[in-house]
């Protein structure tokens, strides 16, 4: 599975050219086309008592976005890449879905703003709604101020967390498509406390051995393609352990799957993928499962 076209969704305060620049290494993996999308939320130009529809504000916001996109596009055009841009007054998720329909990207890049509790709430729900409504992998960038990851090294040391769900195979195909880009990948599986039949050390080691063997098979598959890979087993709460692993191995991003089942459960419990995407300090690449026919 190759990444030929990416959709870069920006509000400018969350994602800027440095984030885009860190993705350009994907050119080694087939990336040749970038589509920019800036959605001006309706409430910024909506009817105001005594002022009516803020047409001048709309023109100003559109032109400001246009100037940024022209500047970015010039850099990409000069590299021989194809570039498109959309600037729309609309609502974020429906507009993203419209552009997906027109452009069929292979990857969506979106930021997560962290300026205030309300905005955080909305941004979080944007990401999870997008995960629910599309089958396209989503890379969630973190707000620049909180991001401790060196953006240029985004694909240097990713951590892939697998729970052996049906999205696993798709995640592997996606990683294989990035073989010229990834430095070293760490594949981890977290065994939930509840999955251990008994807490004695023999039992824990038995489970670890079994899971490690499965992980090593994935590593072998990747190393056959020239991707350096290492496996790790963790025990405990998946969200905490994935975050811990990312810190231990100084991950450049976390790669997670998201299944339909998880999307349904999320309404009740909050899925691991969504929680990590919303709360982790690491950029997260979420790979949804294939649509069932």
């Amino acid at each position, binding site marked *: 599975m190759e990444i030929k076209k990416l959709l870069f969704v920006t509000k400018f305060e969350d994602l800027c050219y440095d984030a885009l620049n860190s993705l350009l290494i994907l050119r080694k993996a087939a990336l040749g086309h970038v*589509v920019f999308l800036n959605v001006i939320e309706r409430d910024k130009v909506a009817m105001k008592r005594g002022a009516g529809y803020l047409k001048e504000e709309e023109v100003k916001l559109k032109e400001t976005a*246009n*100037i940024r*996109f*022209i500047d970015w*596009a*010039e*850099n990409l*055009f*000069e*590299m*021989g890449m*194809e*570039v*498109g*841009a*959309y600037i729309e007054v609309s609502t974020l998720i429906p507009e993203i879905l419209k*552009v997906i329909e*027109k*452009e069929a990207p292979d990857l969506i890049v979106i930021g997560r703003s962290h300026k205030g509790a309300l905005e955080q709430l909305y941004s979080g729900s944007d990401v999870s709604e997008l995960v629910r409504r599309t089958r396209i992998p989503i890379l969630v960038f973190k707000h620049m101020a909180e991001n401790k990851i060196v953006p240029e090294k985004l694909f240097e040391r990713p951590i892939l967390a697998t729970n052996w769900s049906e999205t696993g195979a798709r995640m592997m195909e996606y990683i294989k498509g990035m073989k010229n880009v990834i430095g070293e990948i760490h594949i981890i599986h977290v065994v939930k406390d509840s999955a251990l039949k008994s807490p004695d050390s023999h039992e824990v080691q038995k489970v670890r051995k079994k899971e490690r063997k499965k992980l090593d098979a994935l590593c072998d598959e990747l190393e056959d393609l020239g991707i350096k890979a290492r496996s790790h087993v963790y025990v405990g709460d998946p969200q905490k352990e994935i975050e811990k692993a990312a810190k231990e191995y100084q991950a450049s991003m976390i790669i997670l799957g998201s299944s339909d089942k998880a999307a349904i459960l999320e309404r009740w419990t909050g899925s691991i993928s969504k929680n990590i995407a919303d709360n982790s300090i690491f950029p997260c690449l979420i790979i949804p499962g294939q649509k069932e026919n």
Partner: protein
Amino acid sequence: MSKKVLVVDDDPDVRSFVVTVLEENQYIPLIAQDGVEGLEKIEKEKPDLVILDVLMPRGSGIRLYHHLKSHEQFKALPIIMFTGIALRSFLKSQKVLDEFQGAEVPKPDIYLEKPVDPEVLAAAVRKKLG
């Protein structure tokens, strides 16, 4: 008989500006919103001139220009570039495409950077079509 001019631009305000200039100068305007639709209209409507933007969704003017100038059936079609993208970047991008596709295309003879006055645009069209 009036000549047909195809305006390829994703911005409705720009399209409306160019269409007004063309109508006032007795040309027949045709419109397309992106590079893909632009190529379809060129093949179907056979315009006498194309006014082409660069940064558009679904196919940029960079690719469309290179495609038209490197294919025999479109080579002679006059094109006015009308865009916010700097000429320098446009030329560099064409050079990269030349190397990649192995076909060297000529520079555009009229490259207008937005915004331009209506008289400048009208004069450019007249220069190409008479």
